[in-house]
């Protein structure tokens, strides 16, 4: 499955309607969402290439049609123990600025449209502080909207 949305275009379109669209996915018991315009592609797990001395939440890098994309396990980023992925898992590849980053998820659940006004702020003590920048309730429950920029802050800025 491929979602070829231009980030800015989709964002603008959603704003125009006052509706914002998110791709939601599950990781463990949690339900998370990322703006649809930031989603570059969704693909099934394939073995990745580990990087030397990579952090615990990084699974490695994969080949996305010729570009090298890192894959991170948000479960580990939120403090839970990472687990070994299998082919039932799904990688959601998102844009973070100009970088493409893969998020390891258990499954993609839905695409939801939410009026801007229904996005609630995150309580300060929320686990994984800074990682979410909004909460939304939908049919499946509470969705934490991920703040991709904070979550995947650049590593290459200091070079």
């Amino acid at each position, binding site marked *: 499955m491929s979602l070829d949305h231009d980030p800015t275009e989709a964002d603008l379109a959603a704003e125009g309607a006052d509706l914002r669209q998110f791709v939601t996915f599950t990781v463990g018991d949690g339900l998370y969402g990322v703006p649809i315009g930031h989603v570059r592609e969704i693909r099934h797990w394939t073995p990745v*290439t580990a*990087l030397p001395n*990579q952090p615990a939440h990084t699974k*490695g890098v994969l*080949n996305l049609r*010729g*570009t*090298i994309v890192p894959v991170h396990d948000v479960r580990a980023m939120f403090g839970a123990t990472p687990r070994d992925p299998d082919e039932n898992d799904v990688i959601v590849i998102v844009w973070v600025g100009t970088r493409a980053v893969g998020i390891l998820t258990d499954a993609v659940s839905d695409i939801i449209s939410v009026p801007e006004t229904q996005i609630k702020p995150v309580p300060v003590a929320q686990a994984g502080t800074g990682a979410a920048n909004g909460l939304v309730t939908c049919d499946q429950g509470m969705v934490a909207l991920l703040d991709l920029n904070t979550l995947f802050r650049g590593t*290459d800025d*200091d070079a």
Partner: protein
Amino acid sequence: MSDSDDEDFTALFFDEARELLEALQEHLNALADGDTDPEVVNAAFRAVHSVKGGAAAFGYEGLAGFAHGFETVMDALRNGELDPAEAGVVEVLQRAGDRMHALVEAAAAGRDAPADDAGLAADLAALTTPAAPKAATAAPSPQNSAANTPEAEVLCRVTPGPSFTESGHDMLRLIRAARRVGLKDVHVDGALPPLDQVDPTDCRLSWDLSFRPPGGPTALEEFFAVYGHTAQIEILPSLPGPPRADTPPDTERPDQSPVARETGDKYLRVELSRIDRLVNLVGEMLITQAANTAAIETAETASAASAQTVDVLSRQLRELQETVMAIRAQPVKSVFRRMPRLVRDLSQKLGKPARLELGGEQTEVDATVIEELAEPLTHMIRNAMDHGLEDPATREAAGKPATGEIRLSAEHRGERVVITVADDGAGVDRERVLAHAVSRGLVGADEHLNPEDIDLLIFRPGFSTSDTVSDVSGRGVGMDVVKKKILAMGGRCTFSSTPGAGTVFQITLPLTLAVMDGMTVAVDDQRYVLPLSSVVEALRLTADDGRALPDGTQVLERRGTYMRMFDLRGAMGLPRGDRAPPLAVVVETEAAGPVAVTVDQVIGQRQIVLKSLEANYGRIEGIAGATILGDGQVALILDIPGLMEAQAAPPRQELMH
């Protein structure tokens, strides 16, 4: 066309203008030196002419206007009406060249043109006798027709001349096109065949075309302008005068020289991104080809014939790839030639007479490498001038010629290019360097360092170069920055110094940053690629081959010499294996000589396409990049010297939290 396209074109124009003006400078210098080759004048004329044309096209009227006046003078020179040997002529031309430069830079920066304080335009004009024409700044404005009322019926009589058809015109096409500007009716003098059976070659007739032009008569004028010189066009009732066939007075003559010879080679300017796409594509093809080869090797049914065609295809692909890479190759000359001026300037500023000797300027490297080279080279030359060369008195006291010498050269060595900056100065003052490093806290006062280690201190971040901060190299940019830059390009930086005799800096760089030959190895199921250019040989190891030194380093004895062993498994952070690695690949390193990298498997040699890890992730010490193997998996390209260095230094925490 989008704005960004326009910006691209504008940027391209400025690039070209700068190049042209640089060439112009050279031509004018040749004239100043008494060169009388007419081609020099011609080339100079064309440079000015081209800049003028571009400036007019992009709407830089000030620049175009000045260039026009300049061009008039160059034209006079070209025609022999003006003698370059005449006193003051070349000087004015050189000033005009400088002013063109200033105007181009002003236009590029979006500034107003600097004032012509020196009255240069007047000086230029004075060169051409009789009085030079006034500089035309813009194209003549289109005539405005008085009877510009749309929808009025207009009759046009078109009488094709004898060369009408030969000149690429076609009455039928004219009539077809005329419909778009409101053609209503066509009459032809004589027998009129049906419109679609008109013989287009037989044009010796008069055609009356009646129009109801939606754009008014001006639109018709414009429509007929292109036929004006091969046909007689009469616009009959309401429109006064012929279509704009008149010419504004102009002193320019067409360039009638049948073949204007270009000095030197011809270049085609191609956007780098287009070539990059080509390079990537070739890279992908090589990958596919590798997969194909593997598939045929394993397939039992594969015929000898198909194996042979695969061989042929491989060779062709390799050739294609080499050709593509060659497109990107450029001689280092383009960056080297900026250096003589730098040396001259510094020589004056520092009061140190110096001579720069260039070598191997034609050595070709990848375009991206060239771009990245300018900065480190500039810094190295500065460093050599500032810290390498002594002042003339000291030199003479030491029995050396007062004029110092710096040698900048390039050469190919295998798959790499080696660039050397050597000076015949005093060499590194180790005592001072050490004292400095101690004072900066880079080394402990009681640490014992051998001379080479002391030399290397200058590459350490935070090592300030001079006692007093000079405005030459003491700009807070140290050699560590140079080194970092070179490393980032996949290169190495070394130097050696002989007290009293001078310092030699050497940069080795990959020829290309995009494609290289690699040796694929594996530890467990992880595959890695070693740049083939650094691989010396592969060895089979026995259990007791390694010897441990007191500091824990393992060494290996081969043919009477010892080389260091490098545990790739450990360096990659892989879990300890249950057996000793059976193989080692010997890799040549500049700092530590040959190093035996221990691996489980040597898979083979293949061409690899370098992919960036940094684009989406970040830089990893000791990893030069990544590549995609035939099965689509990613493999890391190892930089063994970098890995060894990273191991020696404490691990950097630079990954995302």
